């Protein structure tokens, strides 16, 4: 059976060149980057090189990069680190309703401790409005955290505009306000320049850009105060203690460089596949809804709700035909958890349940698109044939 991987927003297949770059650090170059001897120096040099490669991907300085175990740790370090450092100046956070669970979870934890949180709506296009950020700012706001691009629907948020609002607020005396963006989905897919975005903190993950799982980074603008969350070591200039995972960091660096070099080509390639996929799906399957703004979104991602059927059923049907996709909804122990992102768009619960994310990658082909469209038509037809909802509607119309 043919297998087609269309879940690149979940994780990407490690690039062979990236694996090749990391292998020596799993074998002969096994040193601890903190050791003074030759083995240690070799590892230190590799970590520093990777740090520069990661910094270049987002046009930052190497000393502004804190290497972490991945995106979740970067988000956690950013939110908890900044809020703990600024707690005596204010306890108000502004965020959006469509953040990744790692951001949502960290912020929810502060709310439970008594902090106030303003969650900005994203309207039916899945995009935060800059004027809403401006209106939500208070004297006691210490953190604004809005993702650069959403992980389920791919919508790109107006981070540079929000960054300008934050800078203006700081210019009038709002000194303890920090701006964080989760760029895990956006990195390597759209250009990122931390200066023009106006962010103080930005999260990255290696395994979304063709490195193996295990390394990520937090961009921390020089001068931003942060309480380390992992202590007891001098690594990462005391901002993140723990022996560096050298091989994973080397892979992350190599992947960042590759992403930087291939960004435009990847962009064009995945956009072409995604757009053809969407037009074929729209031509072959009725009663569908595209989720999120169709212009201001990542080039590789498509999120579609299929009426009368439920996402997990469709996911399994596609899996049985060798096609990997994902759904943001989950039915567990008789409790349905429809995707909060799709619900935030104002969609009915039934549409939120039937939402599927297709995320393309650099190695997908035109043949993959052809195969997936056929598999999808088959799966949707079978499930709708079984669905009492589609039969009732058909009887009415």
């Amino acid at each position, binding site marked *: 059976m043919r297998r087609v991987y269309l879940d690149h927003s979940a994780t990407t297949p490690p690039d062979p060149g990236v694996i090749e770059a990391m292998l020596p650090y799993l074998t002969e170059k096994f040193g601890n980057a903190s050791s003074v001897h030759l083995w240690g120096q070799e590892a230190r040099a590799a970590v520093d090189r990777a740090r520069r490669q990661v910094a270049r991907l987002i046009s930052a300085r190497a000393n502004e990069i804190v290497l972490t175990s991945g995106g979740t740790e970067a988000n956690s370090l950013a939110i908890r680190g900044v809020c703990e450092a600024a707690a005596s100046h204010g306890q108000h956070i502004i965020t959006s309703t469509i953040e990744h669970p790692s951001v949502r979870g960290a912020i929810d934890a502060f709310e439970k401790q008594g902090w106030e949180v303003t969650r900005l709506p994203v309207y039916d296009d899945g995009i935060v409005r800059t004027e809403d950020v401006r209106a939500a700012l208070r004297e006691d706001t210490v953190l604004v955290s809005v993702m650069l691009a959403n992980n389920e629907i791919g919508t790109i948020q107006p981070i540079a505009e929000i960054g300008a609002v934050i800078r203006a607020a700081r210019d009038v005396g709002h000194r303890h306000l920090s701006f964080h963006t989760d760029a895990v989905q956006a990195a390597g897919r759209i250009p990122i320049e931390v200066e023009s975005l106006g962010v103080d903190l930005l999260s990255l993950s290696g395994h979304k850009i063709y490195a193996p799982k295990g390394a990520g980074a937090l961009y921390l603008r020089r001068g931003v105060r942060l309480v380390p969350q992992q202590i007891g070591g001098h690594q990462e200039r005391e901002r993140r203690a723990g022996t560096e995972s050298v091989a994973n960091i080397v892979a992350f660096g190599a992947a960042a460089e590759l992403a930087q070099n291939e960004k435009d080509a990847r962009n064009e390639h995945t956009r072409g596949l995604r757009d053809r996929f969407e037009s074929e799906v729209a031509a072959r399957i009725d009663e569908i809804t595209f989720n999120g703004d169709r212009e201001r979104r990542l080039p590789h991602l498509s999120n579609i709700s299929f009426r*009368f*059927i*439920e996402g*997990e*059923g469709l996911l*399994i*049907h596609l899996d*049985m035909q060798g096609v990997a996709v994902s759904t943001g909804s989950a*039915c*567990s*122990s*008789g*409790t*349905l958890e429809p995707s909060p992102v799709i619900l935030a768009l104002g969609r009915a*619960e*039934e549409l939120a*349940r039937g939402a599927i994310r297709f995320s393309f990658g650099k190695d997908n082909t035109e043949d993959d698109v052809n195969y997936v469209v056929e598999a999808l038509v088959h799966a949707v037809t*079978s*499930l709708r*044939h*079984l*669905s*009492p*909802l589609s*039969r009732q509607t058909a009887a009415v119309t």
Partner: protein
Amino acid sequence: MSYSESFRDHIAHPRNAGELPDANAIAEETNPVCGDRLRLSLSIRDGRIETARFLAYGCPATLACGSGLAEMLEGMKVEDALHLTRKEIVSAVGGLPTRKQHAAALAIETLRAAIESKEIATVRAADDE
């Protein structure tokens, strides 16, 4: 989460899917919490289920349980059908993860409601005579 071969087969090739035009026992039940739906139509003659068809909307566990139930019901005495347990449905689909057990509960509930609908209809018919 991994599903058994048997489970996946019920999803790929649902047994007895559809609706019986000449059904004399019909029920459609909804899980009020998650919104999953199961519709069962049965043709019952002389205390025995001759034919069974199902329709389902919801998570894969609900689809598989509908299929497993409809398949096992055909030829079964109504009396025996009333004694079917959740466990038997779960085993008919090759097992379910703990968090999906509610799908088998919905299947049993729909089955009992369908049989009850036939009994009510029979009582009404007797009253009319």
